């Protein structure tokens, strides 16, 4: 343990460098890995890897319950068109190595995953990237709908320097977001690794400004809870969380992918003009309006001004029309009608449950639900169709499929009435 710390402090203290050199490569890998922490002793005294799946599932269920509790009763309107700025703190603290290989690398990796997931779940939304370095906030990318450009811009700028300033970042984002159309939901997601903020002015005023302009600020901390972040999130209605480890960080990030409930002021119905462009024929040549160069093949044509764009969804650079494809709309739809969370089946009572004995396997993947030692493993059941599912399927159904196989396989007329409900 102390060896590892020495290696960490070695980054700052030159005299410790020799010490770190003294550790052999094999030893360092061992020390870094900390594999002994992932073992636990079972009843019979054998060492086993810690079984984390139950814990993760419990976490997942809590999250699900939280989300559905918010949606309980009435159907909550959700902001499907989101304008999200991701602020990444690249200050000195981001170079810390308590996440391996370093906070900055871990952040970049998971933001990449998040951006993809975000566009998958919110095809109508746009993202922009902002970084904080040396106490100043820089715009990495402007708002846009293409994951690739963001990821490329992000990966090119991986270095950590200087102080961090929350106020500068908020001011910058606020300025950018003041131009988005009123039906869009303004959000900021801040990945904050520093523990202090060196601001040029009164940050409380900036927070009030954000509150006034309906900017929903969420913060994910990487080391510890900070009062100002908590205050910011409380004031603007965002979420504040602190990551314990890498896996947790990923979960916390992905929590921000599904659209949040709409703020009451936005809840008025709004008509938005949209275009559904046609895909250009293979091999056709045209000057692309987004890259300003000649492109061959796969592209889309704006139905209003006939300009060519490369990716969907986007805004037509010529006439400003929002361009989407119908699958995008369809994919956003499930947020409005989520499947109710499944009930957990208590492990002990299930033995005498007659129906349980009938279906010993998961309805989704047909795997056996009997766990080790012939004991029934943990499983869940759908409230409507009463089918049993294993935990993996539970997560898959709620997070990816958005349809319950049990309910869908009930014969047609009934399922239609269910859908209409």
């Amino acid at each position, binding site marked *: *343990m*102390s060896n590892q*710390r*020495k290696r960490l*402090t070695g980054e700052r203290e030159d005299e410790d460098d020799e010490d770190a050199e003294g550790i052999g490569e094999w030893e360092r890998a061992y020390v870094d890995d900390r594999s002994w922490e992932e073992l636990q002793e079972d009843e019979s005294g054998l060492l086993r890897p810690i079984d984390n799946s139950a814990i993760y599932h419990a976490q997942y269920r809590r999250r699900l319950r939280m989300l559905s509790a918010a949606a309980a009763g009435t159907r909550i309107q959700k902001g499907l068109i989101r304008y999200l700025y991701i602020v990444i703190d690249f200050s000195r*603290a981001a170079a810390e190595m*308590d996440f391996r290989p370093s906070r900055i690398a871990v952040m970049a990796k998971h933001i990449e995953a998040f951006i993809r997931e975000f566009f998958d779940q919110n095809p109508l939304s746009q993202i922009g990237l902002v970084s904080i370095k040396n106490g100043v906030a820089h715009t990495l990318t402007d708002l846009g709908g293409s994951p690739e450009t963001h990821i490329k811009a992000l990966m090119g700028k991986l270095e950590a320097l200087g102080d961090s300033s*929350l106020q500068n970042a908020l001011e910058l984002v606020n300025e950018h977001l003041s131009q988005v159309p009123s039906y869009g939901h303004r959000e900021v997601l801040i990945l904050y690794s520093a*523990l*202090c*903020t*060196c*601001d040029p002015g*009164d*940050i*409380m005023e900036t927070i009030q400004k954000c509150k006034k302009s309906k900017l929903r600020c969420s913060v994910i*901390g990487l*080391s*510890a*809870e*900070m*009062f*100002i*972040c908590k205050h910011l999130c409380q004031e603007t209605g965002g979420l504040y*969380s*602190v*990551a*314990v480890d890498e896996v947790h960080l990923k979960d916390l990030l992905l929590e921000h992918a599904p659209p949040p409930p709409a703020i009451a002021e936005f809840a008025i119905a709004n008509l938005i003009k949209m275009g559904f462009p046609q895909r250009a024929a293979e091999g056709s040549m045209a000057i692309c309006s987004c890259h300003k160069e000649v492109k061959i093949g796969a592209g889309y044509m704006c139905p209003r001004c006939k300009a060519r764009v490369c990716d969907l969804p986007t805004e037509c650079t010529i006439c400003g029309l929002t361009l989407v494809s119908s699958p995008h709309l369809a994919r956003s739809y499930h947020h409005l009608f989520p499947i109710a969370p499944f009930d957990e089946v208590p492990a002990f009572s299930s033995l005498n449950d007659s129906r349980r004995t009938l279906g010993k396997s998961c309805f989704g993947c047909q795997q056996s639900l009997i766990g080790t030692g012939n004991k029934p493993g943990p499983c869940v059941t759908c409230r409507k169709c009463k089918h049993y599912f294993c935990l993996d399927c539970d997560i898959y159904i709620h997070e990816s499929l958005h349809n319950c196989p049990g309910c869908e396989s009930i014969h047609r007329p009934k399922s239609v009435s269910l859908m209409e409900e």
Partner: protein
Amino acid sequence: MIFKIEDVTVYFPYDNIYPEQYEYMVELKRTLDAKGHCLLEMPTGTGKTIALLSLITSYRLSRPDSPIKLVYCTRTVHEMEKTLAELKVLHDYQVLHLGTQAKILAIGLSSRKNLCVNTKVLAAENRDSVDAACRKRTASWVRALSTENPNIELCDYFENYEKAAENALLPPGVYTLEDLRAFGKNRGWCPYFLARHMVQFANVIVYSYQYLLDPKVAGIISKELQKESVVVFDEAHNIDNVCIEALSVSVRRVTLEGANRNLNKIREEIDSVQLVGRSKATDAGRLRAEYNRLVEGLALRGDLSGGDQWLANPALPHDILKEAVPGNIRRAEHFVHVLRRLLQYLGVRLDTENVEKESPVSFVSSLNSQAGIEQKTLKFCYDRLQSLMLTLEITDTDEFLPIQTVCDFATLVGTYARGFSIIIEPYDERMPHIPDPILQLSCHDASLAIKPVFDRFQSVVITSGTLSPIDLYPRLLSFTPVVSRSFKMSMTRDCICPMVLTRGSDQLPVSTKFDMRSDPGVVRNYGKLLVEMVSIVPDGVVCFFVSYSYMDGIIATWNETGILKEIMQQKLVFIETQDVVETTLALDNYRRACDCGRGAVFFSVARGKVAEGIDFDRHYGRLVVMYGVPFQYTLSKILLARLEYLRDTFQIKEGDFLTFDALRQAAQCVGRVIRSKADYGMMIFADKRYSRHDKRSKLPGWILSHLRDAHLNLSTDMAIHIAREFLRKMAQPYDKTGTMGRKTLLTQEDLEKMAETGVQDMAY
């Protein structure tokens, strides 16, 4: 919620109760039943005050035939206001459920400075001058004079109050100081005198320790309290020091000079009274009448009514009241002569070159042989002076403080043969070349001042967040408690993380032991610890050092070696000084830095003002570092004399007492960060001596129970690792009601269930 504890129905103004609050009430109720005294230790942030108030008021309601009175003593005015505010909530709740029969009268009593509403009087800068300004307007002879001379200024509020006479009463209710002032202003009655008058009718009185412990004040304020009272000392971990201070006097050169001036003035007054007396019969008659009164004995004097109810004044043992004032000081001129001789003698004694230590007995005998003042005369000095000043109609009491101090000293020396010692030091230990002679009469026995309180009242409750080791307090204060218990805090999560740091990252031991404290390695390691900590702890960090001089030294070294600069890269640095205004400003800015996310470190001193009274809760204190063990200055003559006395009288070993005292200070310091259950914080004891069992075991139970064995012998790097993990864990959302058998919030049903099965089944 309403529930029953044995035969008492308790009205508790909140819907949920912590299990330890419930147990606290049970123990308290047993104490009241037994009519005995008790010691209860419960960590701060668990709602001690409300538990106490709601049980005692409910107890009173359940025994309508023998109403008890609650006397609640707090240390500061701020705490007093907080207590009264809680009582208000409780009172509203009880009235809501029981109707008007639950109505009580509760008042807070404080000095004139806090209660006065007369703007002219309030213009005076300190407490004593406010008192004097008030007396100038309200003394009986001033008011008598003003009937002839309309130019003499009086206080309208007091006049109105006097006019209302017996009708000047407060309607039942709970009155904070603010409420009292508002009420007084509204009615035009003086709130201070009204409150003092209402003390005898009130059901709950909240005031400061001094009103019960200081013999000079207690005689005036608390003499009318009935025996069936429950006296509560809150935050009483320093009660022995308060008792000792109440009976200790120190005399300096300045005091003697002032006293001489006072005497001259008194002399002039006497002469003028006598001169005028030749022409006017009444004035000369005053001194004459006083003489006659004194012949008959103090007990018959109008303002000191003898009798059983009158609180046995510790400065004046009972027999003094029955004895007559000795003949040689009955006449005013004679008394002045005696005082003059006393001052001369004290002046001679102060001229000494060496440190002298003497017992009161030998002091009195040498005083007798050299100045011809005997012990009995000394004993009456204080009362004789009071009487003389009344007779001479002196109102500027603040100007006469020096002579009062000297008389106070004389009375104490004359009264007590044991438990005191007289120490004369020609210079301050730290500055040996500047002569600053001081003569100190120091009390060693805390039980002397508090004994009358224990004897007089039915139940005395001593309670605080840190009373460990709990068996030492009964010995120091010499009383036998019927209940002495230490409660743990039930927590939903491990929200405190105490650590003992014994080594720096280079594995060298760290300590503030005398021979090690200036070692550059130790200073550097202490600095590195802070540098590392400020980079991983968010918002506020508080550091406590053992003394001002040590703090100054270490900060200077850190500044030279650049450590301070490294700290300032992460957080702003604020330092406590001996100047109150400066410190207040520093604290204010510290809070602002914590609020706006900049982060700050506060350097403070154990036993200082900040360590005693300022909370660093929530983000204002996520980490507290206690550098070293805050032992008292062991070369101080007073401390040595006290240790000797404790060893001879109470069989308390010197080492034990010193450790106990140091550790309670340390616990007090680190306890500043946790003020409620939702809070969390880390505590680092940075000294290798804390890892020893004899030191560690004296920490309060609620800290010890979180001090894991693995955290007993840490080096800086290990502490950093633990801190990181802890902060991450604490930032996660948690369930407030507690899970898995560790119930930390009880509802009405839980309590009813518990009443059936017994408290013991409750899993902590």
